[in-house]
C-alpha cells in the first residue's frame, strides 16, 4: 500500500548570522512512520525539528505538510501547529495549571470544544500515559518522566497528525527514561506519525522506521534502521556509531 507523504522537505537552508546550521536538507516522512533524527550535538537535528513546527524560520527551501507547501505569510501557522504537535526536552508544562488543566487548555481555548468533552478526552489520554491518578496534581509534584508523559498527553489532546519529539528523554534521570520511551513506542504502534530527535540508539533501532543521520547541518546518511545500524556506508556515520554505546 502506498503511504501518504506527511512531511516533505526540499532544499531547506537555515543560518544564524554567519553560522549555517541547516544545509540543503531533503527529507520525507511517510504516514505512520517513525523517523529518528540522530547525530552529534550541534549537527542541526533540533533546529530541523523546530523548523517543521515553524518555531524556527527557514531561510530558503520548501516544507510541505501533508502535501501543502506552508509559508508563514500565506498560511495560518496556528492551524498547521494544530496538526503538528511538539514534545520538548524540558517538557514546558504550564506550572500554574493542574495536569488536567494542562491537557484541556489547547482543546478548549484553541479548538473551542466544550469543557466537559475536553475533560472526558483528557482523562482517556491520561489513562493512556498511565497518569490517571495525577489529574488534579500540579506539575511541580511530578517526576521528570511523569512530566514528559503529561506533555505527550497534552500534545495528543489536539489530535495531531504528526508528533515531533525534541530529545524527549535527554533531561530525565536514567531510571525514568524507560517509561517515556514505552509511551512513545505505544504511540508508534498505534500508527502515529512521529519525528524524534534522540540519542537513544536502542529506541531508534527498535521503533524507528527510518533513521536520518545528521552532521554539521547536512543529512549524511539515511535508511531503514536494520541497514543503517548494521551496515553504515559513510565514514562519519561509522565514527558516530562507534562512539555511541548500545
Amino acid at each position, binding site marked *: 500500500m502506498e503511504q501518504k507523504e506527511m512531511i516533505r522537505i526540499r532544499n531547506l537552508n537555515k543560518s544564524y548570522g554567519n553560522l549555517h546550521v541547516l544545509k540543503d536538507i531533503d527529507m520525507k516522512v511517510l504516514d505512520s512512520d517513525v523517523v529518528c533524527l540522530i547525530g552529534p550535538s550541534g549537527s542541526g537535528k533540533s533546529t530541523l525539528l523546530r523548523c517543521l*513546527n515553524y*518555531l524556527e524560520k527557514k531561510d530558503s527551501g520548501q516544507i510541505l505538510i501533508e502535501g501543502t507547501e506552508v509559508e508563514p505569510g500565506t498560511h495560518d501557522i*496556528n*492551524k498547521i*501547529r*494544530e496538526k503538528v*504537535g*511538539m514534545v*520538548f526536552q*524540558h517538557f*514546558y*508544562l*504550564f*506550572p*500554574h*495549571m*493542574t495536569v488536567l488543566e494542562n491537557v484541556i*487548555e*489547547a482543546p478548549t*481555548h*484553541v*479548538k473551542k470544544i466544550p469543557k466537559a468533552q475536553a475533560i472526558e478526552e483528557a482523562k482517556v489520554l491520561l489513562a493512556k500515559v498511565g497518569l490517571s491518578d495525577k489529574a488534579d496534581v*500540579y*506539575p*511541580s509534584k511530578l517526576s521528570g518522566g511523569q512530566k514528559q508523559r503529561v506533555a505527550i498527553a*497534552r*500534545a495528543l489532546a*489536539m489530535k495531531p497528525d504528526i508528533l515531533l519529539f525534541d530529545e524527549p528523554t535527554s533531561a530525565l534521570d536514567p531510571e525514568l527514561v524507560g517509561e517515556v520511551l514505552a509511551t512513545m513506542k505505544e504511540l508508534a504502534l498505534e500508527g502515529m506519525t512521529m519525528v524524534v530527535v534522540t540519542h537513544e540508539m536502542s529506541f531508534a533501532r527498535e521503533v524507528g522506521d527510518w533513521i536520518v543521520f545528521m552532521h554539521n547541518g547536512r543529512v549524511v546518511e539515511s535508511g531503514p534502521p536494520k541497514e543503517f545500524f548494521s551496515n553504515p556506508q559513510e565514514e562519519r556515520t561509522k565514527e558516530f556509531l562507534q562512539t555511541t554505546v548500545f
Partner: protein
Amino acid sequence: MPSFSHFFDTLFSSSDVFIRAMLLTLELTVVSILVGIIIGLLFALLKISNIKILAWISDTYVFLVRGTPLIVQIFILYFGISNLFLLPDFWAASLALAFHNGAYISEILRGTIQSIDKGQMEAGRSLGMSNALALRRIILPQAFRRALPPLGNQFIIGLKDSSLAAFISMNELFNVATTLGSNNFDEMTYLLIVAVYYLILVAFLTIIVNTFEKKLSISDR
C-alpha cells in the same frame, strides 16, 4: 509630646472626620492602583513588543515619570489640565497617582514577563495558540504571580504617596491631620493619629497581598 490620655481622647473624638478622610485615601489608592496596573501592563507590553517605536514610547514614559517628582506631576496635571478642561480634583489626583505608579508597575511587569522561560511561549504556540492567547493564558498568569511581592511593595508606596494629594486640597488623611493640627494648635497629636490610620491601611493592604500570594502559590505545593 501629648499625654496618652490626650492622644486617645483626640483619637476617638476625631474618628468621624478621620474615617471619612481614610475612605478618601482608600479610594484614591484603589483607583490609582487599578488604573496604574492597566497603564503599567500596557506599557510593559509596548516595551516587549519588538517594535522599536512602541518600545521607545514606553521608555520615554518611564523616563519622564521616574525622572520627575510626583508632586510636580500632580501639580502639572492639576493646574495644567484644568486650563484645558475641568478635571475634578479627585480625578486629577487619582490620574496623576495612576500615571506615576504605572511607570513603576510597567517595569515590574516587564521584568517578570521576561523572566518566564521562553519555552512556555513556545509550548503554547506549538499547541496552536496565537501569541495573544498564549500571553493571556500562559505567560501573564505566571508573570503576575512572580510580580506580586514587588507589586505589593509598590501598592504600599502608592498608598503613602496619595498623601501628596493634600497639596491640591483633597481632604484625605494627611490634609485632615495638618488642618486639624493647626486649627487646634496641636500638630503632634494629629500627626501621630494620622500615622495610626496609615498603619492600619498598610496592614490591611499587606494582608490582601499576602492572601493573594498564598492563593496563587498553590501550584508550588
